[in-house]
């Protein structure tokens, strides 16, 4: 373990830290932006901190921390805060250049102590550049990888991601510009500084790799949000479409069923165990079970097959459900079609009978939808004949505009099942 220096009591930093410790309650109050008691004792504690620019006065009974100090505490305590990073390496670079010129000047005049101080200053500025880069990359990487999800408020998450991406871009640009300057004058004047820059660069490469990974995560997150937005629009589109086009058959999707594994999903299989009778132990258990059941049963069970009773009690009430008015109208339409043996337009039928009590409160769209639903349940309507054996529906559609790729429903035609598609099209015209 390295030995700690023991003569630091007179160092001004020790005095500053002691001052901070004495005023710790005030600093917490300043960090949390709450009021402080305004008396002589607190004033005496705050004044040295204000003079050293660690704390700033907001009003008589309120102080705030210097924002840089606030960020140091935030980085340790509030990791989930939105990260705003310093993307400007230029200021530190300018400061390093000035210090470099001072170093050159002191070397020329031969002042060794000044030379050592100037070199330390240059190195400190170079360390600052690395710290800005590393802190920024760390803050953003932490933010996007820890407890990160798309579960709440996607819009703010997206804006946050976009902001991080911009900041990282600026940071990398600034780093690239700085790299050019670091290999140029005045830094190229000093061999030791050049090797120091070389060492720092090795660490910077690790940081840059982290930045690249952060950018990739951000890019994935934004892409994911984009996909979710796109999906939401498509769900709404389907909802709107079936609202406006009742009975629409989705033929194009039906033709593409082999394109998605969902449609190949297996039909549920009820799994039951079958005893393995080859196993002597299982066979013995089965025999025991049969013996047990036999002993519990008073007489041998004989299976008696009886036909279902067709008798009906004399007092039994006969219940029949009357078809709804719309259903009656649909049945009338089907009967007309069978009588005439030609296609009948459901819209025309509705128009001619819209004043009839059965259809008075039914809109054209509702009537078409009811007809489509009625035909979809392919029940028996006459003898052993199903609806589809007698009648078929023809959907008349047209595109909303040329080459639209979609079709609007115009009308439904009720046609005899014996007519082919071509015959129907010729008849309708």
């Amino acid at each position, binding site marked *: 373990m390295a030995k700690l220096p023991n003569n630091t009591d007179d160092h001004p930093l020790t005095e500053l830290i002691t001052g901070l410790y004495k005023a710790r309650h005030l600093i917490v109050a300043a960090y949390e932006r709450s009021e402080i008691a305004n008396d002589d004792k607190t004033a005496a504690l705050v004044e040295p901190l204000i003079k050293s620019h660690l704390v700033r006065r907001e009003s008589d009974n309120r102080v705030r921390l210097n924002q840089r100090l606030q960020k140091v505490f935030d980085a340790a305590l509030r990791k989930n805060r939105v990260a705003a990073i310093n993307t400007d390496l230029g200021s530190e670079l300018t400061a390093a250049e000035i210090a470099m010129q001072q170093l050159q000047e002191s070397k020329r005049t031969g002042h060794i102590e000044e030379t050592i101080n100037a070199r330390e200053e240059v190195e400190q500025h170079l360390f600052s550049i690395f710290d800005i880069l590393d802190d920024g990359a760390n803050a953003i990487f932490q933010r996007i990888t820890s407890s990160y999800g798309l579960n709440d408020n996607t819009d703010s998450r997206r804006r946050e991601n976009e902001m991080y991406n911009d900041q990282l871009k600026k940071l990398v640009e600034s780093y690239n510009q700085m790299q050019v300057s670091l290999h140029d004058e005045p830094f190229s004047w000093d061999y030791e500084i050049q090797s120091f820059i070389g060492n720092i660069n090795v660490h910077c490469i690790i940081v840059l790799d982290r930045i690249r990974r952060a950018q990739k995560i951000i890019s994935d997150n934004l892409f994911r949000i984009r996909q979710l937005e796109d*999906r939401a629009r498509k769900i709404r589109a389907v909802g709107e479409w079936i609202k406006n086009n009742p009975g629409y058959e*989705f033929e194009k999707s039906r033709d593409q069923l082999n394109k998605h594994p969902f449609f190949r999903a297996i039909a549920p299989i009820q799994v039951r165990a079958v005893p393995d009778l080859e196993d002597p132990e299982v066979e013995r258990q089965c025999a025991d079970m049969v013996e047990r059941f036999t002993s519990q049963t008073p007489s041998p069970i004989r299976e008696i097959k009886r036909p279902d009773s067709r008798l009906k009690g004399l007092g039994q009430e006969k219940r029949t459900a009357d078809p709804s008015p719309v259903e009656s109208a649909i049945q009338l339409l089907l009967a007309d079609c069978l009588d005439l043996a030609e296609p009948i337009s459901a819209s025309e039928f509705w128009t001619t009978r819209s004043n009839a009590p059965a259809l008075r409160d039914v809109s054209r769209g509702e009537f078409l939808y009811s007809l489509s639903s009625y035909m979809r349940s392919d029940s028996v309507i006459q003898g052993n004949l199903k609806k589809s054996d007698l009648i078929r529906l023809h959907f008349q559609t047209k595109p909303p505009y040329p080459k639209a790729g979609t079709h609007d429903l115009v009308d439904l035609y009720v046609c005899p099942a014996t007519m082919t598609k071509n015959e129907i099209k010729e008849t309708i015209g």
Partner: protein
Amino acid sequence: MSYSADQDATYLKLVTRLLEGDVICPWSHPALARVLENPDAQHRINRWVQDLEMRLSETRSGTGMYLSYEGWNPQVKSAAKENFSKLIKDLRFYTQALELLMSSLHPDVSFVPGEEIRFNNLLSQIDQSATLQGQLASLPSSKKHEALRDQLDSLFSRMKKEGLLVEANTLHSIYQITARMDLIQEMLEFIAENEALPNLEPDNAKSQSVLV
């Protein structure tokens, strides 16, 4: 590879669930999903079901797995048509329910598996909007109920029954979206793409300004 008795019991349960047509995901079947995460277990199941001309399929997000038929023979075609007909039959319910939930919680994005829905938060959102109340009342599950809470309860019951939601916390009525719901959303996307339906923006949608 040898398996312990416990592992075998879980494996048997997993295979049974898969054969019963369940979509296995970390929210609907946490223990089984953990087993299925292991590539060895996936390989073992695939090897076993390949004689039945089946294989494991994954939802697009990769969070759910289910069994599907291999190949495209007449039997599979017939099963596919049946699955499609079932979907079309319930299409109105799915779109209405999803639109209601999205409009109440986040109008511009669809749901992700594992997302939490708090019943009481949703109820208070719907309570504050006449439009949302209208949407909820128009759902087939709301027909027998008049009170808002009963209508929403009935909707959640149906979604739970269909495996679209699971109750994550009974005490606080917190539900989670399952991979089956993700699959239904995928299907709606599939229909919209194939039918080339025009996309619709929600009323308060804000478009993403930058895509990296």
